[in-house]
């Protein structure tokens, strides 16, 4: 007993070091659910509060970019509106497709904290459960897909960014509808990769990449990025480099996308699979 005590005293620094490193490692390996834990809820409310105030100060300096983006989106929406109304003048009544179109609701939100320089980047929004945000909702900016909500507190929500090596998005080439899996390799925040595209598919530089709509998170056809023309061959498939349409360094205003019939769809899919 005495020699054990002596041993512990003699190596107390080393033992403490090993214990602390073990605690850190345990925290790392068990933290994939971190964004749902109580501890994180508390720190999110504090850091959200601080980040919101800092963001309010710096938002002013980005107004030019924000305006530009909104004008572009407005123009696009006006074009769509013109297309729809001109159609009805010729006798067609615009109908909402209940399978693909009208199932989604949109809520605007402000990005109050964001990063692009880690391997696992997350974004904090100023909307929470109070505003109806729930885990699993999609997030997009006016220029493209941004991520998926992974944690919600009363006033804030945390989004797993497309720039997170754990993130997978089902995306397709708009021109020919071939779909693959979009994932970030953790290197450059402007580029991501679309993999699992068969060899024989002809692709051009500049082809548009959109969401496939195969998951219930995003509606089909949401802008994601464009092909740069670089590709990597491996096995039966090629993986294509994609320039993201959303500039993650300039994110300010985004939409949270809710799917009104998500539960119904997932229940049905689960039922059939069993």
């Amino acid at each position, binding site marked *: 007993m005495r020699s054990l005590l002596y041993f512990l005293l003699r190596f107390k620094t080393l033992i403490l070091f090993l214990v602390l490193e073990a605690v*850190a490692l345990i925290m790392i390996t068990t933290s994939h659910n971190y964004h749902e834990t109580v501890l994180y809820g508390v720190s999110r409310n504090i850091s959200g509060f*601080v980040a919101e105030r800092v963001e309010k100060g710096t938002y002013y300096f980005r107004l030019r970019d924000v305006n530009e983006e909104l004008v572009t989106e407005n123009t696009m929406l006006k074009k769509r509106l013109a297309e729809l109304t001109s159609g009805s003048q010729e006798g067609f009544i615009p109908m909402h497709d209940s399978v693909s179109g009208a199932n989604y609701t949109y809520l605007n939100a402000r990005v109050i904290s964001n990063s692009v320089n880690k391997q696992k980047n997350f974004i904090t929004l100023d909307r929470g459960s109070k505003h109806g945000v729930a885990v699993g909702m999609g997030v997009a900016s006016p220029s493209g897909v941004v991520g998926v909500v992974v944690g919600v507190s009363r006033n804030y929500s945390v989004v797993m960014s497309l720039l997170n090596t754990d993130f997978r998005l089902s995306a397709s080439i708009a021109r020919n509808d071939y779909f693959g899996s979009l994932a970030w390799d953790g290197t450059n925040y402007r580029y991501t990769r679309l993999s699992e595209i068969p060899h024989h598919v002809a692709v051009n530089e500049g082809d548009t990449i959109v969401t496939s709509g195969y998951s219930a998170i995003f509606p089909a056809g949401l802008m994601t990025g464009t092909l740069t023309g670089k590709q990597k061959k491996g096995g039966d498939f090629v993986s294509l480099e994609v320039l993201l349409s959303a500039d993650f360094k300039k994110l300010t205003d985004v939409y949270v996308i809710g799917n009104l019939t998500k539960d119904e769809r997932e229940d049905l899919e689960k039922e059939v699979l069993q």
Partner: protein
Amino acid sequence: MNSLLRYGGAFVLLIALQLLIFNNIEFSGYVNPFVYLMFILILPVSIPSWILLLLSFFTGFVIDLFSGTLGVHAFATVLAGFVRPWVLSLNVTAEAAETEMSPSSYRSGLRWFLIYTVTIVFVHHLALFFVEIFSLRHFLHTVLRVLLSTAVTSFFIVLFDFIRSRR
């Protein structure tokens, strides 16, 4: 009491600098300065190693809490706190180690402080970036991140040390 207040102030200041300013700076994805590490570097030479370890863990843990990377920074800072006495013993004479002095370029010379800073920052960043990615995938990319970030973090720490000793 006075020194407790001083180090407490330094802790709050460095954490705030890190979270509010340096976490938002990003040059090309290769350079991520982590200046909060300066807190571990400037603790008194005579601090018992177990207190140093506990403070290191606490520092990393606070950064983790606010950046959503639970455990990653804590792992790296504990390692930095563990190697600090060794790096010090390579350079500090026995009588200096008895004093309450805080390692600085003002007392010990720029050359000494630079070696001391770069060594510990390098160990910290090496652990940090490899634990963050948790694989040897993109090995060279990660090594480059470690080297460039070590240079920039060390630069800022030496700069802050200079400002500190001028006062």
